[in-house]
Structure formats: structure tokens, C-alpha cells
């Protein structure tokens, strides 16, 4: 087990190093920040001074090495726009995004798992068919459109929920959270639901497919032949086997919730990382983009690692330290 963890950590390190190269070069070719950063009326000397200040006069490989050097000291460079450390900017926005993503994931699991289970257990009922048709809508309707519709219906027409922002926040562990206040929760509801819709449908369909795959297995019949109550057959024998693919997807999707909450955050003006990255891309704020992408790489690496550990807990067949 320990050797496999070490091996995985080394692999993760290689992934991260490879990603720094890809990200750095990629960001360097998408445009020249100088055009945006410098006042068009500035004279040649001032231009040269600004370019030198940001280190943009160096060849790309040297810029990369300087970047790596900073990275080793935990320094992603200063934002061109805000003039503050890029990492700090991102970490400041992280709680808002995290809060949104976790709420969305919770909604997706709370609705997706039971509905999928129901549709899988009773595939011929009309309600199951409705659930499954609904899920098709859930992941084929574009997020931005659903977001706009939610605002139209619940904010504009009905006036129940606010359209944007985080509302009042309360402090916990030194950061501000919306879910701690009633008003903040009301602000959280629409964007979280918007973000959760796709994931709910996904988990639902995955669960249903899993149920239909597991139910006809001999071990389910054997469990019934032992005289177990139906509730135990479903909750233990079926669900535990079902969770293996579902956990994988939930883990990976949590990453994508954080990384790609851009659309939802933009629509609901949610001051999270997604909003920050969109603004930074518009302004070609290289250090922030690079720092954000690196954070996402790290996030996925960590999530994959956690999923692997969950796997070994759920599925004894791949437990590496198991006695044969």
C-alpha cells in the first residue's frame, strides 16, 4: 500500500511538471498582455520599462524557468491587473466557489441517487419513465439557458429568490460563507441548483444503469434465497456494488464542478474563482490564469488520489494489501 502511494505521488509530480510546461506555453501564445496593460498613448521608453518590469522582455524559456523558480517558493507571480500575488487572489475566491460546488454536489447526490435507484428498481413504472425523460433534459439543456430561465421564473416573475451575488455572509474559519445566513442561503439556492442540474441527471442515469446491471446478478438472487429482507438486499448487496462507478464519477465531477463553474458564476454574478478566471482571460492576466490552471491540475490530481483510496475501501478485489 505504501509503495503504491509513493508511486502514485511520483506520477502525480510528473503530471504537474508536464502541466506547468503546457500551461505556461499555452498561455504565452494566446495573446500579448502588453497591448492591454499599457496605455496606448505611452511612449517607447515607458513601454520598455513596463515590459521589463513584468519580465516580458526575456525569452520564453527563461520566463518559464523564472516562473518555476517562483513556483518552488510558492510564488505564482503578481497579477498584472491587481498587482497582488495571483495565488492570494485565487485563494480569496476559493471559498465562494467551494461553497457553490459542494452545495451543487450535495443536491446532485441527494436527488440523483434515490431517483436513479427508484428508476432502476421499477423500470416499467410511468414515474420511472418520467424521471428518465427528465434526466435527458437535465443534461442536454445548456447551463447558461437554464440559469437565465431560473432567474426569469424565480427572481423576475415570482420574485422569490435574488438574482445575483452572495448576500450576507458570516465568518467561519476566518473566511466568509453564505450558507451560514438565511439570506446567503437564498442567494446560494439558484446558482447551486443551476450547477447541480447536469450532475443530478448524470448520477441518476449512472445509478439506474448500475441497478439494472447488479439486480440480475446471482449474488442478489442468492441474497434473496437466504431470506434477507428486500430492504437489506437493496441497501447492502445492490447499493454497495453500485457505489463503485458512482463514486468515481462523483469524484471526477466534483473537480469539474469547481473548474467549470465559470458559466454559472458569470450568470449569477457569484464572486468565485470562475468569475475571476473569465475576467483574467479577458485581460490576459497571465499569472492569474497560470496560477488558476495549476490549482485545477492539483485539484484533479488530489481528487483522483482520493478516488483511488475510496476504491480500495469499496472494492476489496483491488485492495493492494489484501492477504491472498
Amino acid at each position, binding site marked *: 500500500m505504501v509503495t503504491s502511494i509513493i508511486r502514485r505521488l511520483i506520477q502525480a509530480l510528473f503530471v504537474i511538471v508536464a502541466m506547468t510546461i503546457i500551461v505556461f506555453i499555452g498561455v504565452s501564445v494566446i495573446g500579448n498582455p502588453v497591448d492591454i496593460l499599457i496605455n496606448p498613448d505611452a511612449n517607447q521608453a515607458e513601454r520598455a520599462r513596463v515590459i521589463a518590469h513584468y519580465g516580458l522582455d526575456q525569452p520564453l524559456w527563461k520566463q518559464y524557468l523564472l516562473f518555476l523558480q517562483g513556483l518552488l517558493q510558492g510564488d505564482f507571480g503578481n497579477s498584472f491587473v491587481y498587482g497582488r500575488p495571483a495565488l492570494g487572489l485565487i485563494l480569496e475566491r476559493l471559498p465562494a466557489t467551494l461553497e457553490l460546488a459542494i452545495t451543487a454536489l450535495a443536491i446532485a447526490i441527494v436527488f440523483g441517487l434515490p431517483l436513479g435507484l427508484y428508476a432502476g428498481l421499477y423500470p416499467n413504472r410511468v414515474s420511472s419513465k418520467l424521471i428518465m425523460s427528465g434526466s435527458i433534459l437535465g443534461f442536454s439543456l445548456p447551463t447558461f439557458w437554464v440559469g437565465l430561465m431560473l432567474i426569469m421564473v424565480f427572481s423576475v416573475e415570482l420574485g422569490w429568490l435574488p438574482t445575483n451575488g452572495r448576500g450576507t455572509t458570516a465568518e467561519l474559519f476566518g473566511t466568509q460563507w453564505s450558507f451560514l445566513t438565511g439570506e446567503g442561503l437564498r442567494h446560494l439556492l439558484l446558482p447551486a441548483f443551476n450547477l447541480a442540474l447536469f450532475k443530478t441527471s448524470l448520477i441518476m442515469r449512472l445509478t439506474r444503469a448500475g441497478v439494472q446491471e447488479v439486480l440480475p446478478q446471482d449474488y442478489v438472487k442468492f441474497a434473496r434465497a*437466504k431470506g434477507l429482507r428486500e430492504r437489506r438486499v437493496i441497501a447492502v448487496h445492490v447499493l454497495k456494488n453500485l457505489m463503485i462507478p458512482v463514486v468515481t464519477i462523483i469524484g471526477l465531477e466534483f473537480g469539474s464542478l469547481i473548474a467549470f463553474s465559470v458559466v454559472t458564476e458569470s450568470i449569477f454574478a457569484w464572486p468565485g474563482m470562475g468569475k475571476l478566471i473569465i475576467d483574467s482571460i479577458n485581460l490576459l492576466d497571465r499569472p492569474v490564469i497560470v496560477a488558476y490552471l495549476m490549482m485545477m491540475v492539483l485539484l484533479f490530481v488530489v481528487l483522483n488520489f482520493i478516488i483511488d483510496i475510496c476504491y480500495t475501501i469499496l472494492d*476489496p478485489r483491488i485492495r493492494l494489501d*489484501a492477504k491472498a
Partner: protein
Amino acid sequence: MTALLKVENLVTEFGGSSAKPGLRAVNDVSFSIERGKVLGLVGESGSGKSVTGFSIMRLLEKPGRIASGRVIFDGTDIANCSEEEMRRLRGKRIAMVFQDPTMTLNPVLTIGTQMVEAVQAHENVSKDVARQRSRDALARVGIPSPEERLSAYPHQFSGGMRQRVAIAIALLHKPDLIVADEPTTALDVTIQSQIISEFQKLTEESNTAVIWITHDLAIVSRLADDIAVMYAGRLVETGPVTKVLTDPHHPYTAGLIASVPSQNRRGEPLRQIRGMTPAIHRLPQGCSFRTRCDRATDGCLVMPPLLPEEDRSFRCIHPVLKETA
């Protein structure tokens, strides 16, 4: 002695409803079994023998259902009892052992969990007591160091060992009846032999009746008291094993016995029954075996009834009879 289990005119259909008949996998099957006896239920793949077993357990997969007939277990008709009443019987008084031991145990639960839950499904005992019982049960089927094995997962066992575990689970509550659905088919021959002796010994100890579903006549001749031969969903011949196997009356039974390789002479081509089992949705009119039978005549266009003869019966108007002269 009254029969422990009496199956009367059992019809199991897939699909269909009370108005419109579905596919009949089991058609008008009747047999009975006494306490402590072994009945060999024999037939080719698709003959309906496994479906008969699952019908008795009431574990038919949808859209399968018992369309008519009675399954009288110890005086009560279990074809129509409630799901909860049936659950109380399953595992407790009627147990089942499946064909493929690699598939019967849940891969993500320990052997201990799967045995303890089986104990607790029927008896209100503590986990420790249930575990103790499970350990003893494993020891009884010849599994070494049972205490450690309780914490192991199914994939850490060989196929034969897993089947022993399944048998241990089936025997946990000393059931009155075990439906064994080809429990040795997936095992290699030496293990087969061990499992059969083990099974025989344990069921004798607890006076458990066994319905042994198989296509292997050698096993039946070694194990069973009675035999019931199925063909295309119907019984074609029943009776005591010794009589039926030495003196089969139905041409199908005779064909099955003749195609056992040890019955053939060296150098001769192996004998076989020509043709294939017809699909249940395209059965020939009259006797289902007619199209594969050398003795068939126009008289076979009408389904013959089961004809009784002393303690046996057969469904044929041109029976094979030993030349007594």
C-alpha cells in the same frame, strides 16, 4: 409418510397475463419429495429444470411468474403465500445452492458479513452468536481456519471453496429442503466428487431433502433416490433412479443414457440424440420429442399423458421396453 414438497401441475410462464398465455418454460409439472430424500431433476439446457427450481423458491426473474398449479410445502401452498411468508421460508426451511460459485457470493462483502446476515435474517441473535454459528458452519464443510476465513472476501477463495461456503450458508438453519441448481457443474472433476460426498453427508445428518438439478446422469445415479426427466418444459419420465436408469421407458431418457460416454464402446462414434431441443415458443404439435424420435408415428401428434406403471410414470405411447424374453 406424507410428502415434504408436492408440486402439482406447475405452470411457469414468461410474459403473458391471466388472459393471454406467455411462454411456458414449465408446463404441467408434478412431482413430490419426502423428507431426507434426493430427487434428481434431469434435462438438457432449456428444458425448464432450473426454472422449476426457481419457481419453488419463488425467485423467478420478471417477467417470469407461476401461472397456475400448486407448490405444497409441508402442508401449505407456497405458490400463493405472501412475499413476507415466503421470505421467512427462504434460507430457513428451503435453501438454494446455485450453479456458479464465483457468482453467488457478493464480491464486496466479507464471507462473515454474508453469513451473519443469513443467520440474523431468521433468528434474533447477537452478532457474536451469529458469527460463532457461521464459524462452526464453515468448519463443518471442511474449510480450514474458519475464524480467519470469515474476514476474507470471496475473491480470496477458489471456486470449490466458494461452493463450500455457499453450501455452509444453505445449511445454516438446517433446512428441510435444498434446491441445488447444478452445484458442481462449474467445478473440476476432483472437486466435484468431494463436494458431492460432503453434500451427501451433511444433508443426511440433518435429514434434509434435496432437489438436485443437473444434466449429469452419473451424479444422479450416485446421489438420487428418485429421478424426474424434463424435456421442453414437461416431465417425460419419473420414478426411482435404479429402475429408470437401468430400464428407461421414454425414448428421450433412453437416448440420454445412451449418450453418456462410458456407455459407448471404444472406437465407436459417440452416440447422440439427433437434432436439438426445440425452442419453447416453437414446440412441435403433440409430443415435443416427436421430431427427434425414431419411434414417432402419427399417434404422437397428440400430447400423450403421463402413463403410470407401478411407482413410475412416462409420457410416451411407444415406450422403450426391455426385452424380457
